[in-house]
Structure formats: structure tokens, C-alpha cells
């Protein structure tokens, strides 16, 4: 019981402290920006962490799956639904967003499962180097497919959410920010419930702990891993939707740096730990926004990378240690 309390209290405490510090340093407006960015990173970081927890593979293609997700969402909105400007009817807007979100997540989940089935599964027992190199290859394939379909220059995304803002405390924040953050948090809570409460979630956790034992106990390993990739890719797809709506334009190589930052977030939170990944995402976003506030925009990537190296050197297990992928 006490360990249960600790498991909840510690990340909660770290999260609250981090948020308070962020708010103090950034002010309302930038804080809202950092939170939105953090939501994107967190959603992607979750995918890194889940996949790593279960197959011990850093899925280099994950950032690009996120990128493909943003393009899929863009395509659904502009070509399939024919949207181009803000939708002012609130009910319509919510319906449309739900539809875009659902379709993108479903599509990306299937793509994720497809990649796992054909690129990673055959190499599950190969030397470590092989799946890593394959992942790099997949990453390049995805980038170049998108580049050839949509062109190498930035593509604009229909801004279907009105850019209205409301005043709060000492600043003004957009409804969009609120919506994004709420959505991300809902998805994360749903994921926690899924992993913690359902039969499939249990299968995932037991596979992460000890694949052979899980197999002996009747867990279908292939199915479990496929579902993990599905969820990871679907979350990245959700991140892609947010990215497109929030920044208004997307590019074929956007997955590279965003992926790197999200991976840093996953490591910072403790790879294999889903709560940690979420917290890490918000911290990394904070570092980046803070660098921008201080006027060092072009160094923000260097700063994030430095964070990655420092964490790896001084605390490779991350802020919250390992919960999912504990193995001697």
C-alpha cells in the first residue's frame, strides 16, 4: 500500500513543483505555450517509452510517425472534409475535431502496427544493431514518402479552431491552448487506465517485465506488442493533430527534432515509465520556451540536447526510475 501511495505521490509532487516553477518563470502566456508544446512532446514521449518498455527498442521512426500523423490530419481536414477556415459553431467544431482526431489516431495506429509487423517483428531475435538500423531506414522511408507526396516545403494546415483568446490572471490565452492541453491530459489518463486496469494492459505490463514468463502464462506476445505499437503510434498521431492545429504549418522533416526532444523527455522521465514520459515532456517544453524567452531561440535545441546528455550521465534511470521495464 505504501509503495502505491509513493508511486502516485512522487510523480505528482515532481509534476506540481515543475509546473509552479515554470509558471513563475514564464508568466501566463508563455506558460500556456509551454504547456501546449509539452502536451505534444508528452504524447510522443509516451510512445517511445511504451515501445522501449516492451521490446527494448528505441523506435527511431517514432518522430516520423508523429510527422506522418500531422500530415494525415491535414489531409483529412483539407481534402476529405474540405475545411479551410475557422468553424464558429461550437458543436460542429467539437464534432469535427473528434472525427479528425479519431480518424488520425486510427490510421496512425494501423500504420504503426504495419511497421512493427513487417520491419521489426522479423528481427526480434536478431542482434541489437539490426532493428536499430531498420528503424533508421523506416524513418527515412516515411520522410521521403511524405516529401514526395506533399513536397519538401512547409504545408499549411487549415485552422479550424478560432484563434480567440480570453483574459486570465495577467495574460491572455487561446481557447486552442486549453483545448489541446485538456485533450492531451485526457488521453494520458485514458492510457494509464488502460495499462493499469484492463486485461490487455496487464498483458503489456507482464510482457515488459518478463516476456518468456508472460508467454508461458498464456499472453499472446505478438498481439501484445502489436497493440503497444498501435497505441504508441495513435498517441503520436494525436500529437500530430495538435502540432498542425497549433503551429498552422507542417514539414516532412519535422519529426526529426520533435522526435529527439520527445525522446529526451522519455529519458528524463525514466524510460519505460509512462508517467515520467508525460512529466518529461512538459519539462523539455519548458526548457525550450524558456530559451526562447531569454532570446536564445536558435540554441534551444542545443539546450535540450545538453539536458539529454546530463541526464544520461548523472541519472540514466531518469527522474522516476524504472517501473515498466525493470530487468536485471
Amino acid at each position, binding site marked *: 500500500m505504501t509503495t502505491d501511495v509513493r508511486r502516485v505521490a512522487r510523480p505528482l509532487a515532481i509534476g506540481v513543483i515543475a509546473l509552479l516553477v515554470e509558471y513563475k518563470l514564464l508568466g501566463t502566456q508563455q506558460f500556456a505555450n509551454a504547456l501546449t508544446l509539452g502536451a505534444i512532446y508528452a504524447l510522443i514521449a509516451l510512445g517511445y517509452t511504451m515501445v522501449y518498455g516492451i521490446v527494448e527498442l528505441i523506435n527511431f521512426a517514432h518522430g516520423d510517425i508523429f510527422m506522418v500523423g500531422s500530415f494525415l490530419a491535414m489531409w483529412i481536414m483539407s481534402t476529405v472534409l474540405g475545411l479551410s477556415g475557422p468553424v464558429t459553431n461550437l458543436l460542429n467544431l467539437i464534432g469535427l475535431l473528434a472525427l479528425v482526431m479519431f480518424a488520425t489516431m486510427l490510421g496512425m495506429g494501423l500504420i504503426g502496427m504495419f511497421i512493427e509487423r513487417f520491419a521489426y517483428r522479423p528481427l526480434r531475435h536478431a542482434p541489437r544493431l539490426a532493428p536499430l538500423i531498420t528503424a533508421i531506414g523506416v524513418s527515412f522511408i516515411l520522410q521521403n514518402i511524405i516529401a514526395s507526396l506533399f513536397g519538401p516545403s512547409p504545408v499549411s494546415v487549415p485552422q479550424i479552431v478560432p484563434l480567440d483568446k480570453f483574459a486570465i490572471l495577467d495574460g491572455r490565452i487561446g481557447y486552442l491552448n486549453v483545448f489541446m492541453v485538456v485533450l492531451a491530459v485526457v488521453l494520458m489518463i485514458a492510457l494509464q487506465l488502460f495499462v493499469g486496469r484492463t486485461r490487455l494492459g496487464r498483458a503489456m505490463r507482464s510482457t515488459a517485465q518478463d516476456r518468456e514468463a508472460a508467454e508461458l502464462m498464456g499472453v499472446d506476445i505478438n498481439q501484445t506488442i502489436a497493440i503497444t505499437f498501435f497505441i504508441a503510434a495513435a498517441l503520436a498521431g494525436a500529437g500530430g493533430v495538435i502540432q498542425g492545429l497549433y503551429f498552422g504549418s507542417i514539414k516532412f522533416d519535422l519529426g526529426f527534432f520533435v522526435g529527439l526532444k520527445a525522446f529526451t523527455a522519455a529519458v528524463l522521465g525514466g524510460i519505460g515509465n509512462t508517467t515520467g514520459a508525460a512529466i518529461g515532456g512538459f519539462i523539455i517544453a519548458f526548457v525550450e520556451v524558456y530559451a526562447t524567452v531569454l532570446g536564445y531561440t536558435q540554441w534551444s535545441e542545443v539546450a535540450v540536447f545538453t539536458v539529454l546528455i546530463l541526464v544520461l550521465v*548523472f541519472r540514466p534511470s531518469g527522474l522516476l526510475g524504472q517501473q515498466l521495464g525493470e530487468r536485471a
Partner: protein
Amino acid sequence: MTAAVAGPTTDGDLVLRARKVTKAFGGLIAVKEVDLQIARGAIVSLIGPNGAGKTTFFNVIAGILDPTSGVVELGGRQMVARPVRAWLEPVTWILPSIVISGLGVLTYQASPTVGDLIVLGGLFSLIAMLLAAIVRPIWYQTMLRRIGVFKSARPNEMVKAGIGRTFQNIRLFSNMTALENVQVGMHLKMKSNAADALLSTPRARAEETESVVRAEHYLEIVGLKGRGDEVARNLPYGDQRRLEVARALASGPVLVLLDEPTAGMNPRETREMTELISRLRQDLGLSFLLIEHDMKVVMGISDRVTVLDHGECIAEGTPDQVRQNPRVIEAYLGKPPE
């Protein structure tokens, strides 16, 4: 088992001495306060039911796992224990360079050139310290000791200190030849460095030729004479076990740790392995620590036997003493033997 009054003089003939070694994984205590002593030239066996913590204990001794508490000494030198003030080590890498660079920044006002040079020196001190942390030369280890940092020896340092080992599931370099496997074991005994290799100096070439001769000698000792060119993966199971022993011998150990050396062997291979161990002790004066399930092997060649159960040492003594110990009979065998 171990008297508390152990002074350095009484350790003279001890090869290895483990005191109150405990290893916990989270809440699970795999090994609890186990003591073990191995005298020079002795064969000691570690037995116990599955999951008794034998391999964990082995890995602590081999420097692979840090113990939760307790100490392992090799020839009277503390090699393995819980790390003390490990966080100080990275500080020693960074601090000098920060101090030097700070000096450089201060002098920059007076003379930019000198300031730049000093900052550059700070950078080099960082590189030097990082390199030292990797190579761990004597002065670096002394410095760590001075500031109260203790870190357990790494596996390769345990080998240097005189421990050779084999693994429960054979871990040969399976795509290398038998000869190359043994040559890898001789790595420590060879002196030529990267520069020698690049220039192909006579010293490097002579050493390489000599290493082949010596590797063949080790193969002959374990009974694999003339099989050096075979790829390790293609060797029969029993030969792979023997090749692993040869690789362990090649590092010139005083103590050899054998993790289930006869597992999966047929009676003839088992007998040969037992004879090999006895012969190695006689001819080379080696000491052995065995994990073994085959009671015939254990009782046949051991001088002392230690029995673990649920991570705790429940008996220690000569094979005869252990055999008659009621706790062992109860815990280990579950029911009295006929």
C-alpha cells in the same frame, strides 16, 4: 563462520573472502549476509536449490553486480562493496576545468591571449579527467580514495586481480574461432597497444605469434588440442564448456569461478570435467569456486561446501559435514535421503 577478529595476517593464505554479502533487488532479498572464504588451492562448492541466490552471489564476486551491503576481498584487498559517495566522481571531472576556466575568464581582462590559453587549459583538464575516469590509472584511483569515494571493481578489473569465470549458459564469442576465444582471454596479458598495431612493430608481431602458441597450449590443457580453427558455435556442447574454461584460464587467474560446469553433460563428459578441475588445481595451483547441481561432482572434489537457501547460508563445512547436516537435508533435499 568468519571470526570477527580477522586481521590482515590471517588472510595470508586466503584467495577470496566475502563478508556479509547482501544483495536486494527492490524488495526481494536474493542474497542475505553470506560469508565465504576460499583458501589458496582449495575447491569450494556453492550449492542450494534453484533460486537460492547462487548466481547472484557469483555475479557480486565477479564484479558484475554491486552488493547492497557487504564486502568482497581478493588477496586482502577490498574489491567490491556498496559504492560510497559515487556522486563525487563526476564532480572531480568538472570542477578542475570550471576553476581553471574561471581563472582564464578573470585574467582575460588583463591579457586576452593568456586568458584564452588558460580557458583552453581548462578544456583540456576536462578531457584529461574524463580519460582518466575511463582508463582509471593508479593516481586516479588514489585520488578517489583520498576524497572518500569507493567504487566496486569492474568485471575486467576483477579479472586483472586474478578471477576467471565461466557462465551458466555458455557465453562464448560464438562466431570467433576457438583459438580467438582463448586469445581474447589473454587480452590482459598482452602489452602491445593501438600504436604498436598501427605500425605493426616487431614487438606486436612477436607477441601475436606467441599468443597463438600459448592459446594452443591452453586448448591442449582442456583437451581441445588442434581444434583451434573451429568456429566456437560449431563445437559440441561439452567442448564449448571446456573452451570456456580455457578462455578463463588464459587470463592467468588464481581463482576460477565455474557456474555449473557440468550442466547438461553426459556422465563421461562430467567425469572428464571433474578430472580437469582436479588436475588444474594440482598442476597450476588454482583455487576454484563452483556452483554445481550434480552432488556426485560436489562431494567428489570439494574441500568445502557452502549451502544457500532463500539467499541465506544454512550450512558450511566439509562435504561430509554438510551431507549430514539436518538443516541441509531438510531445506535442500526436502525429505531425508534413503
